[in-house]
């Protein structure tokens, strides 16, 4: 087991862990986004889905634990690497020209923080209802409709989704490299693949707050 620790201690090890946990989180998001989209099928559809989930505690808790672990590792690695990278350049440059660094790459850290805050808020909002004006444990549909009809809340959701889009745009491109796939063919594909994933996933989420605010669903 201590080889795993040693592996995780290395910079590359941490990056691999981030890539894998990132993938796990990403996987959840895909399922989650699809689930959320049921909302357009009306109250019954999504509530039935929610009940189905509630009826399977093992599944739900399994997923929750997996997510929690993944997120914890991902955030820890992010934290340690970020500190290390900052420390590696104590004196900055008077002038520094950037060529290949994308906005998405630069936004990883701040975007990550936004995502983290979002997740916390989001759980208190739609899972526990702690910060929800009129939370009902059985009416997910209602929770979303009411919850997101508050403008600043919807706004925050949209911002968070923007952060997610950027995060995935670099993240997906990056994890291919981190996990060591390097053939020129892969090279050619991964840029647009990253963009595609980012757009689909973040898009799949963001339509809901937008739809609610614009009153496309009621």
């Amino acid at each position, binding site marked *: 087991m201590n080889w795993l620790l040693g592996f995780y201690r290395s910079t590359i090890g941490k990056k691999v862990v981030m890539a894998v946990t990132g993938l796990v989180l990403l996987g959840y998001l895909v399922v989650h986004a699809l689930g959320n989209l049921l909302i357009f099928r009306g109250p019954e559809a999504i509530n039935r889905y929610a009940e189905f989930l509630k009826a399977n505690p093992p599944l739900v808790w399994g997923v929750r634990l997996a997510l929690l672990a993944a997120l914890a590792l991902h955030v820890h690695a992010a934290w340690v690497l970020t500190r290390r*990278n900052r420390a590696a350049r104590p004196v900055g440059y008077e002038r520094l020209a950037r060529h290949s660094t994308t906005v998405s790459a630069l936004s990883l850290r701040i975007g990550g923080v936004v995502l983290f805050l979002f997740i916390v808020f989001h759980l208190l909002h739609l899972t526990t209802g702690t910060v929800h004006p009129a939370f009902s444990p059985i009416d997910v549909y209602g929770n979303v409709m009411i919850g997101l009809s508050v403008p600043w809340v919807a706004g925050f959701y949209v911002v968070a989704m923007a952060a997610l889009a950027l995060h995935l745009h670099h993240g997906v491109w990056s994890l291919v*490299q981190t996990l060591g796939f390097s053939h020129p063919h892969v090279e050619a594909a991964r840029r647009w693949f990253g963009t595609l994933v980012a757009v689909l996933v973040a898009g799949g989420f963001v339509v809901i707050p937008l739809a609610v605010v614009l009153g496309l669903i009621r």
Partner: protein
Amino acid sequence: MKLTLKVWRQAGPHAQGRFETYEEPEASPDMSFLELLDVVNERLIRRGQPPIAFDHDCREGICGSCAMVINGMPHGPVRGATACQLHLRHFADGDTVVVEPWRARPFPVIRDLVADRGALDRIVQAGGYVSVGTGSAPDANAIPIPKDAAEQAMDAAACIGCGACVAACPNASAMLFTAAKVTHLGLLPQGQPERTRRALAMVRRMDLEAFGGCTNYGECHEACPKEIPLETIARLNRDYLAASLAEREPAGRGGTG
């Protein structure tokens, strides 16, 4: 042509550094950037002021000595060229040029533009070689090597150890340098026996030297005078991952009969 230089001056490793500005009225478009520094230095010496210290030797882009960030770009604006291969015709009359040393914790500044890049040597010492004693080699043609493999290995082996990749990387990471060496040997049959050991040892040393990690920004490749492909970093990641999975406690050294 006339150029204004804004150069980082630092008397010693522990001294406070600052920028000094120098005018050079008699620059010629045919000068290399290092020759410009020569001329500026001649002037400084005549004026009794300490000349600008900078590393250089071959002045044809192969030794990897010259190392300076010119207008925010390691080795300057010309792609695939070192500072010594940069000629003034790439600047406009009247330009102001900012010149700084490599900036990274593992590369402490010795003086002015001169930084200590010993960390790169130590990474190679950790395992950047094939352990073959003199005289114990089989005939050179005993092991055929596919032309493409040899060519790809050569692409990676072209690294001149200048450290521009570290200088350019927002994380001051030495991944491209390390990846180049690991890829060069990893692509050749001669490099296979130690492939696992090498990846582990070199990455460990790289981390020990306090370089940053790789966020896959890609700046290193842009700055690299030998245009070492980013693909090499993926190869390093792969080798390191595989090596970590395959690693075992070192087997017994054998009896001392």
